[in-house]
């Protein structure tokens, strides 16, 4: 099945109360801002958000948090110079936080998309972030068992899609997009451009269309085009 091009609001309607939503981006690079804005308008709440950071400034993820839609954040680095929205909610005890080393976050997402039930990693051994977790010595080195993080919906930003849903990214805005696309039941990609099937060189496609369900162009709040072939 090919990906369906739709409006941001229609695309994020896949998100239900209580869902785990994977949100791409590293800071603002790769952040699917239009999809997050649409998610705020959509109104789903009690969400668990998985993202590298916990929002910057007052827009995007920060605005979703400020709207009270998020129960828990799983991220590597919530505290930043402009993370006042998260900081306030956390200090007020209004949001749960699971801090995960950045590489473990990426690998736990990858594991979820790759059918891996867990993995032993040296990252975090002997630190507070490994407390209570199973450890194992393999060939003389200690490892800690980490579990996959599957998502109900992934919201990512890519650069160009073809109408199949094949994606290419742009520079460091790629970051978490490719692994998140594999880890969710429904993946929504906000893209700058959609080209015809065959226009992307198969050798340069980063995310194959099998992982992508919905495509959204910025400024497409009201347009809706079903694409099938």
């Amino acid at each position, binding site marked *: 099945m090919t990906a369906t091009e739709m409006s941001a609001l229609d695309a994020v309607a896949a998100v239900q109360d209580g869902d785990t939503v994977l949100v791409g981006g590293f800071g*603002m690079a790769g952040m699917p801002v239009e999809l997050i804005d649409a998610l705020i308008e959509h109104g789903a709440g009690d969400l668990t958000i998985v993202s590298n950071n916990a929002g910057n400034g007052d827009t995007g993820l920060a605005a979703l948090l400020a709207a009270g839609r998020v129960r828990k954040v799983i991220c590597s*680095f919530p505290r930043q110079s402009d993370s006042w929205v998260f900081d306030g909610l956390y200090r007020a005890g209004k949001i749960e936080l699971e*801090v995960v080393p*950045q590489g*473990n976050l*990426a*690998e736990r997402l990858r594991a979820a998309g790759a059918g891996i039930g867990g993995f032993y990693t040296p*990252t975090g*051994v002997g630190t507070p972030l490994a407390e209570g977790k199973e450890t194992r010595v393999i060939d003389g080195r200690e490892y800690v068992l980490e579990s996959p993080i599957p998502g109900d919906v992934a919201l990512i930003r890519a650069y160009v899609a073809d109408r199949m849903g094949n994606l290419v990214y742009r520079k*460091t805005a790629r970051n978490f997009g490719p692994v998140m696309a594999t880890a969710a039941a429904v993946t929504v990609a906000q893209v700058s451009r959609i080209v015809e099937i065959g226009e992307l060189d198969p050798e340069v496609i980063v995310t194959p269309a099998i992982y992508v369900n919905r495509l959204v162009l910025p400024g497409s709040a009201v347009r809706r085009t079903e694409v099938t072939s």
Partner: protein
Amino acid sequence: MSLSRQEMARIVARDIPDGSYVNLGIGQPTMVADYLRAGSGVILHTENGMLGMGPPATSDRIDPDLTNAGKQPVTELPGASYFHHADSFAMMRGGHLDICIMGAFQVSAAGDLANWSTGAPDAIPAVGGAMDLAIGAKQVFVMMTLFAKDGKPKLVPSCTYPLTGKACVSRVYTDVATFVLDDGGARVTETFGISFDELAARLDVPLIRR
């Protein structure tokens, strides 16, 4: 005279072998890039998915899709490559990076690193890629002042702050001395404005004269 931050960065840069793959942590380690010799062939890795990172971007070269780990706009050098986060950290964890350079709150004589949390009860925990880098790179160099603002040494017998990684630091570059940590303990390789004996008197860590 103790070293300025710039002088520390210059000394770290001097010790990076030509052609190394290097990750520079956020903050002071970033300054090391300014002192890498032109033609050294050192290739910079940034955790958010790039090898071949160039200098900071200014004015019309700023691209919001091209940033470093500190989320500052940077540039790409010829031969650069991009990859996703799981690959970027596999590269680290898999031992493919030669050196990573980080700041620290404390380093123990056994090479334990504490640089992500002071354990303060009101602090919001945030670790980023520090734990992955600490255990992943072949060598971890720490850059820090040797003494905290209150005068307490930051090279310690064992860390009192929460650990980032165990037995991972190989060298410590400070404003008053450089230490190589190995099985034998903390070997002082250079001092700046302080004698070995004075250094030994101010630290609770047994030191080895080089």
